[in-house]
């Protein structure tokens, strides 16, 4: 096992609707993988399976050479290692930004507010939110909320970060500030998997782009290759629609 995260033949169905039809995917340490594909092709579901928010029906998921998809396994330790950020931020509206960020490290890792304060403050400052720590989510713009959500996931010090179309709900002028955060993380060598509609961004930064079509990875490769010489007809059709 050389990959940090490996998926082998992952299948997931909702009732009679199979959303993942045997997914094989390897994510190496420090790599950034982008999932692209039409709406409903299963990008979100695949990401949710990776950090065990959805139990998979068949196949295996390996993290650092350990099978984490074993039925009955406690998902909590895995989720601490694989953070996820959602399209709709999902901040806790009754807590300030800094309380949102500190909740999980305090409850799950038993750290005190004082232990956390320096590191958390540093994260907020790094992402340009040093003066927004005591604000409630509804006092923040979409871009700011999304950055808080990213900080909240990072505060658990995960080894892998999953991002599910985190710029889709944002006004165009706010997209840039969130993408900058991703660039920053990329530079730090964070292992990342993104579902995204930002093709320009995927082309610029991804190590590998996977085209999902009806629950299968139809084609994958480095962005240069996949974007300019797609092999499959359906990939071509999709790219001509979005590029």
């Amino acid at each position, binding site marked *: 096992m050389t990959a940090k995260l490996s998926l082998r033949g992952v299948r997931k169905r909702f009732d009679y609707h199979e959303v993942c039809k045997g997914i094989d995917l390897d994510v190496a340490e420090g790599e950034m993988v982008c999932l692209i594909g039409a709406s409903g092709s299963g990008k979100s579901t695949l990401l949710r399976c990776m950090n065990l928010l959805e139990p998979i029906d068949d196949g295996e998921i390996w993290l650092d050479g350990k099978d984490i998809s074993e039925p009955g396994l406690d998902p909590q330790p895995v989720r601490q290692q694989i953070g996820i950020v*959602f399209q709709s931020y*999902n901040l806790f509206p009754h807590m300030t930004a800094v309380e949102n960020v500190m909740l999980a490290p305090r409850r799950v890792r038993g750290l005190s507010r004082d232990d956390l304060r320096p590191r958390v403050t540093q994260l907020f400052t790094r992402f340009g939110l040093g003066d927004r720590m005591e604000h409630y989510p509804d006092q923040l713009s979409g871009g700011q909320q999304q950055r808080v959500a990213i900080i909240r996931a990072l505060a658990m010090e995960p080894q892998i970060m999953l991002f599910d179309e985190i710029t889709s709900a944002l006004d165009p002028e706010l997209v840039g500030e969130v993408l900058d955060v991703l660039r920053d993380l990329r530079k730090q060598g964070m292992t990342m998997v993104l579902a995204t509609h930002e093709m320009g961004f995927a082309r610029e930064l991804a190590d590998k782009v996977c085209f999902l079509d009806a629950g299968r990875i139809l084609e994958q490769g480095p962005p240069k290759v996949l974007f300019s010489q797609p092999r499959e007809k359906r990939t071509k059709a999709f790219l001509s629609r979005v590029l």
Partner: protein
Amino acid sequence: MEETSLQKDSVERPAATPTRREVYEAEVRRRSNRIALISVVSVALAIVVLVPLAPGWEAVQRSFFNGRVFVETFPGLLEAFLMNVMIFAWSAPLIAITGLVIALCRDTRAPALFPLRLFGIAYTDIFRGLPVVLVIYIIGFGVPGLGLPRPWNSPYIWGTLALVLVYSAYVAEVIRSGIDSIHQSQRSAAASLGLSDQDTMRYVVLPQAIRNVVPANMNLFIALQKDVALLSFIGPVEIFRQAGVYKSLYANFTPYVGAALIFLALTIPATRYADYLMNKQNRART
């Protein structure tokens, strides 16, 4: 409408000259107020003029609106009302706590805790299915009948307990609906951070749920304040029973009117406030 007026506060604009639209809206408001005032006055006039024409009016006036009886009994009624306030004051927190516990019981998922869940369901079904008076009778007379030593034989204690049992079933249902109203994505977010189910409930779901159901629970507590009067059937001399005593004494119904006024003085502001909170919340949500 609401939204624009909300935003108006935050937009900084010199307040000097009203816009055309504001002038128009002010005029419309003035006209509606005028019409409302005229119609209220005419209805009030009709009542004042027509009701005294009824054949029994003199008798009703004598037995329900007797000024002398009112003045003489009102202080005593107020004093008896303290008993209502006391019963309310110690049952309300018990109801809040019991209601919360029952709601959490109903929400447990662990198989080992299935009996708790069953208990929660049975509890809410039973106590919401019974008339309050009946529970007060059964417990208020039944338990003291066991011949417990003082003060445990007091119908005051057991009657209040009956109120607690019934009302916490309703409060539990309200809290549970609040828990259900929290979107699944909040639980997902908490789970993805590695929070346990208990921590998710305690720190993420419950605080939001409780906040959402404050107005609904306030309405329940207003109803409770009125239902304290039901304890009069089993003994404690609260305001309703005291009014009954005065009625026999003076052979006059005015004390009941006095009691009604005392209740209204408390419940109307409380109801208005609950409505205000409810409206504010609805506005915030849209």
